[in-house]
């Protein structure tokens, strides 16, 4: 085994992904075969973790201090004489009432998305099936490891699943893409299940996606259709519709 494996520089190159595939494989095999090397590596990871944690805490303290300074600045600039306050109130009162009705009653599409968006949890079951790629993917999804979830589901042959499960999987793929910010792919997935048992859910999330994109006109017909029919989303759809139409 090469002594170079034990050096800080080599370990750092490994962590930074600077080794070739062959070098990385050889190094990892050496770690599996030699307890002393694995020990040295674990020690190195502890040192890195200590540096990272300390850096993060100092960064956070620094930013927390800045937040306090900004709050203090706001308080200072807001302490004006009562004359100025009276004048400001008089001027703003006339404007403020009008803005109040507009601003508080009319939420932007994006604000509606933020107010109503919640990720639907994937099935969580403990039985024989829980070792399958399908349920491992659901586990990864519930742990917000969306890239892993998608990768596991890609391993499932298309003909292995019944119709219901295929549609369920398409739904959660859509949500995974949405969480990853891959909106186009999310829309593609959800559009595929508009006529399935997941139709209501797909319609709801499609509507939310359009709200997120600022496309209220595309969201509206979807929300109207949900508001008209009995489903778990009917009351929320009615609320959103009311706010869109005000």
């Amino acid at each position, binding site marked *: 085994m090469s002594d170079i494996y034990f050096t800080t520089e080599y370990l750092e190159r490994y962590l930074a992904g600077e080794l070739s595939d062959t070098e990385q494989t050889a190094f990892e095999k050496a770690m599996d075969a030699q307890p002393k090397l694995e020990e040295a590596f674990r020690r190195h990871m502890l040192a890195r973790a200590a540096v990272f944690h300390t850096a993060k805490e100092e960064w956070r303290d620094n930013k927390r201090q800045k937040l306090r300074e900004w709050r203090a600045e706001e308080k200072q600039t807001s302490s004006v004489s009562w004359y100025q306050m009276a004048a400001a109130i008089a001027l703003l009162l006339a404007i403020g009432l009008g803005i109040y009705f507009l601003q508080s009653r009319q939420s932007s599409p994006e604000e509606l998305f933020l107010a109503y968006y919640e990720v639907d949890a994937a099935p969580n079951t403990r039985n024989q099936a829980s070792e399958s790629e399908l349920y491992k993917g659901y586990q990864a999804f519930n742990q*917000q490891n969306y890239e892993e979830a998608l990768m596991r589901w890609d391993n499932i042959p298309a003909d292995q699943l019944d119709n219901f499960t295929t549609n369920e999987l398409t739904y959660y793929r859509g949500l995974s893409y949405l*969480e990853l910010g891959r909106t186009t792919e999310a829309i593609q997935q959800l559009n595929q299940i508009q006529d399935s048992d997941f139709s209501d859910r797909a319609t709801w999330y499609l509507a939310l996606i359009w709200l997120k*994109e600022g496309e209220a006109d595309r969201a509206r017909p979807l929300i109207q259709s949900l508001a008209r029919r009995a489903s778990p989303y009917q009351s929320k759809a009615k609320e959103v519709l009311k706010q869109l139409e005000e």
Partner: protein
Amino acid sequence: MIFRKSYSESELISGLQAGGIQRERSTDLLIKHHRNLISRGKKRYGLSDQVAEETYLDAIMSLCQQVELGKFRGESRLSTYLHRIFENKCKNRLRDDKEARYSWVDDMPDMPAKARTVLEQLELAEELDHAKHLLAQLGGRCKEILLLSELQGYSQQEIADQLGLKSARVVATSRYRCLTKLKQAIVDNAILFKSKLYSKN
């Protein structure tokens, strides 16, 4: 909203990707302009003042790292992306302690899967606190180089300029030397720990 931000999102993203001082300025702008999320964390998730503030800053840190690494693809607005990260972090804080303990591993830079597994396996509570204490004892220059290299995305040349070192190469070799020094301190203090992490090599 009546008052609009005085910066453009594309300027922010460029600043974050530039690293170093520009990244720090862009980060401060982000923190300042979205700090209303702290109230959201308190009202919606029942977080305390301190926890809501911590969670908000963690969300900012995650966002900055994702922009820096090119993981933010611009398919949504930066503010929407930040909201989503923040909401997820709030939910994580409400989950059980074990999962919350490991959440910081995801904030670390990208590394091979094996390295990530080691981090998750380490008994972090005691060993990490001791290692952090040893880092604090390392001495000013070593600690500075290690910390500046870790989070802020400063280039080695920027660190050299900030610390008055000759060149970027000096920073790189100093960083390796300081990490080695920290690891040696961990070994030298082996009597404090029960884990076989710390037997002499």
